[in-house]
């Protein structure tokens, strides 16, 4: 997740710059490079851990979107760092 956050921050910074300089080739090349790595890693993360956007890598048995911790719960599914007392899994009623 940390690497995804780094890559998406790089993309955001470059987006903002490109908004004001739409023909800057160096920025365009940098964006494409970061975007390729981001897309690849995002696909891997969503397959292995949890969807980042609703509907990403869902399966036929359960809507995975509501089955992973939310970002304010001290961690992400790949960090093994979810706080005790984090959200109800939905099963343990």
């Amino acid at each position, binding site marked *: 997740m940390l690497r995804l956050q780094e890559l998406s921050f790089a993309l955001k910074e470059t987006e903002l710059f490109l908004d004001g300089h739409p023909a800057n080739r160096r920025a365009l090349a940098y964006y494409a490079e970061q975007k390729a790595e981001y897309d690849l890693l995002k696909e891997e993360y969503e397959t292995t851990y949890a969807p980042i956007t*609703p509907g990403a890598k869902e399966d036929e048995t359960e809507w995975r979107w*509501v*089955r992973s911790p*939310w970002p304010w719960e001290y961690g992400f599914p790949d960090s093994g760092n979810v706080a005790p007392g984090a*959200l*109800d899994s*939905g099963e*343990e*009623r």
Partner: protein
Amino acid sequence: MWIYEKKLQYPIKIENPNPLYAGIIVSQLGGPDGELGAATCYLSQRYSMPYQEVVGILTDVGTEELAHVEMISTILHQLTRNLTPEQIVEAGFDKYFVDHTVGVYPQAAAGVPFDAKYIGVKGDVFADLTEDLAAEQKARVTYDNLLRLIDDPDVREPLKFLREREIVHFQRFGDALRVAQDKNDSKNYYACNPAFDKLARERR
């Protein structure tokens, strides 16, 4: 984190500007039961909500409300294109115009600017979800009232779509309330606040 999609949730193409309509529709942007308040309310309630399914509903409805902010803003923009000062005065749009020209500013129809006093975040599962059910109904009534005052089909169609969404959201918040009730003591839902009380967390 959010990502913007460069599209409207429902098509809007208003042929004839009408500042009178803009002056009343603006309430669904920044009024007491407007889309901006709804988005702010639901997205803020998520942090104290202890149930996965309910956080999902708050997140996804809140996000859709942001798309509705954009739809209302688009309607306001299209209704205030190419106006003459005479048309502005005639429609009573002069009071808005003098402060905001034809920029899109969140206020109620009566001119009161958007205020967080319009929204409710109580930090209690049942209080918050009941707030949301009422908010959807109040927004639905506001759309009903707008549809009573507006004839132009170009304006009515997107408003009718938004009105339908209020009803669907009301139903989804009904699902959320059912989920919350199922996870609590059916003999006394208010025995504790599961968003706060430690006892309730342990019992879960």
